[in-house]
């Protein structure tokens, strides 16, 4: 449902451009993974921003006023769209 609102391609978080406003579509992984990132503020419909891509597929992102560092594996599982 969130997906339909934004008319741009679905991206993995690690291929999303830095600086753009993104919206979370979903996260692949077990419900434990989903709950874990949800507690950090990453859940479908939430807006976030990639601050910068790190040296290695990892990245720093801004969500709910705090900044999170995230490794490559996790970024791949989170799908986002650019808000236009």
């Amino acid at each position: 449902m969130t997906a339909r609102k934004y008319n741009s391609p679905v991206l993995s978080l690690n291929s999303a451009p830095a600086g753009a406003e993104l919206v979370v579509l979903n996260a692949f992984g077990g419900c434990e993974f989903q709950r874990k990132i949800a507690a950090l503020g990453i859940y479908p419909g939430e807006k976030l921003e990639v601050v910068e891509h790190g040296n290695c597929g990892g990245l720093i992102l801004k969500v709910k006023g705090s900044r999170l560092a995230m490794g490559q594996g996790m970024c791949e599982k989170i799908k986002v769209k650019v808000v236009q």
Partner: protein
Amino acid sequence: MEKRNQIVLAGNPNSGKTTVFNALTGARQHVGNYPGVTVEKIVGSFKSGDLNITLTDLPGTYSLTANSPEELIARNVIINEKPELVVNIIDASNLERNLFLTLQFMELGVPLILVLNMIDNARDRGIEIDAERLARLFGARVVCTVGNRSEGINELKKVIGEVVREKERHSVNKVNYSDELEIPIRKAAKILTDNKLVPEGYDAEWLAIKLLEKDNEITGLLSALPGSGEALKAIDDIIGKLENDVNEPSEIIVTEHRYGFIAGTCREVVSSTLQKRRDISEAADSVLTHRVFGIPLFLGLMYLVFYLTFTVGDPFMGWIEQGVEWLGVFVSSWWPEGSASPLRSLLVEGVIAGVGGVLVFLPNIAFLFFAIAILEDTGYMARVAFIMDRLMNKIGLHGKSFIPMLIGFGCSVPAIMATRTLNLRRDRMTTMLVVPLMSCGARIPIYALIIPAFFPKKWEAAIMFSIYITGIAVAVLTAKLLRSTLFRGENEPFVLELPPYRIPTLKSICIHMWSRTSVYLHKAGTLLLGASVVLWALSNYPKKETFERDYAGEMAKIEQSRLPAAEKKSLIRKIGNEKTAEALSYTCTGRIGHVIAPALKPMGFDWRVGTALIGAFPAKELFVSQMGIVFALGELDEENPVALRAELPKHYNGLQAYCIMIFCLLSAPCIATFAAARRESNSWFWAFFQMFGLTALAYIVTTLVYQFGILFM
């Protein structure tokens, strides 16, 4: 016994919880473990008016769902121990995310105080929070504090007292979600109540929420109850219907509603006055976590830390050296000149030389912990974990493994305890097994003894650095080996909050430094003291009464000869040394040293080094005191072990000295580390595996270094 009121302190990681805890309780703290698990439990106390309050610091968590041991503990403490009050520390500049946890305390229905901490930060960022309104919306008292400046702490104490006294007047509001979620919750709760499936101490609606969140712990608890099958199935149907209606998994629906509730609250209480701007932390991060410069900057910083560790510590070391020397002379003076009293020997050569020789290096260790505390308290450590994640991944470790490994440079025991932040056993075990390869503070005395004795001043820092790098390199290879053999499997995903950079207070750095340094001091006072005495006895007994050669006769002959005075003196000295060596060979340590000496030869060690290595087994730094004892005995004039630096180069060359350091770096960890590894891995096998594995590794590496090295000598 006087009545104590039990309350708990809870909050997100990085919310400044520990700072508030320290400000409330001061030094009255006790650190232990939660029973059965390896999560730290810190308890402190303070007075509010005439009330005696006991405050337990819950582990920092983002949520109360059973995602990690910490979260499970936080919630079990509240359910089982029924604290009278939960003091929820909230980072005021990050209200939305922090209230996610607050909401879960409200779901539990516990009496609550909200502490808007770091309120100054929030104001600087243009965030104004209407505390009164927040208090009314949540039905909880709200206090604003700045933990590191102790602002608002007295107010907080007062409010805690008031709430504890008049508990019934302070019940939190019930959280009402919109009907979409609220109706399924109530239905599920009713099913639980009707079927008597609400265990003592739990609330039906709370259990229902947890079932909707698919919390393994609660699902397990309820399905173990007799007659729960039907009811849980009915609840599953409710969940299925909800998921079908909303087209999302129920745990996500719960999250969305919680954040929805919070967003509504924030609209009511938060007003932002400033335009969003790029803050200092972000600017700093664009350099410090830079994809190219990040790692070199970090390495440069570490080099600086170790360089300063040596230069800053130096004058202090001098003072302690003099103090130890003075004490030795002073205690000696209790006996007449030349007395052979065993007690004097025990005190001066055993206790003072042994413990003193180790205490001398306290300034170095304290400074290193000081520097690590600064890196931790500024928030830089979290960045380090991030920039190292890729590298760590390559060797099969997690980015978070890096923090225990860094603490390992101070002491392996807290480092092994710090592996608790790793959730997967294979990540944790691998990290734990290689942590002792990080050169800990207890090895510093060994380097600080050997490096200045054998290497020119301008090389000191570089040699030291090379030792540390060797340790890291061996750890990398070992970790890689372990992860591709014994601990195969995928890495745990990496996610870590990057708190804003903060200027740490001197007080918090000192508390940090002291908590680690005191472990070292405690060891010096107990383990080292005892071991020094035992080692002294082993290297003094059995005493040799009849010697194979007539040393006294030989000396007398030289004395009477017509040789020049200088030559006479050196010959007499040589014979004296030979005599002491013979005596020492006869003692227990000497005998053990001689027995293992052939095995040590490939590494370039003689029996004396072997003796000292045996001595270093309980704790690495004992190597220094043991060398001190061995060589003080080997001298005609009774020299202080501090003069050991001058003595060593007469017996060994630079390569041997380097090999000694390498062996001490890599071989079996100290007893305290062994105990920590056994406790944290919950297995004797792995503790022994670590001990023997590392010793074998040390033997191989040192032999290679020595054998390769002599080709160039």
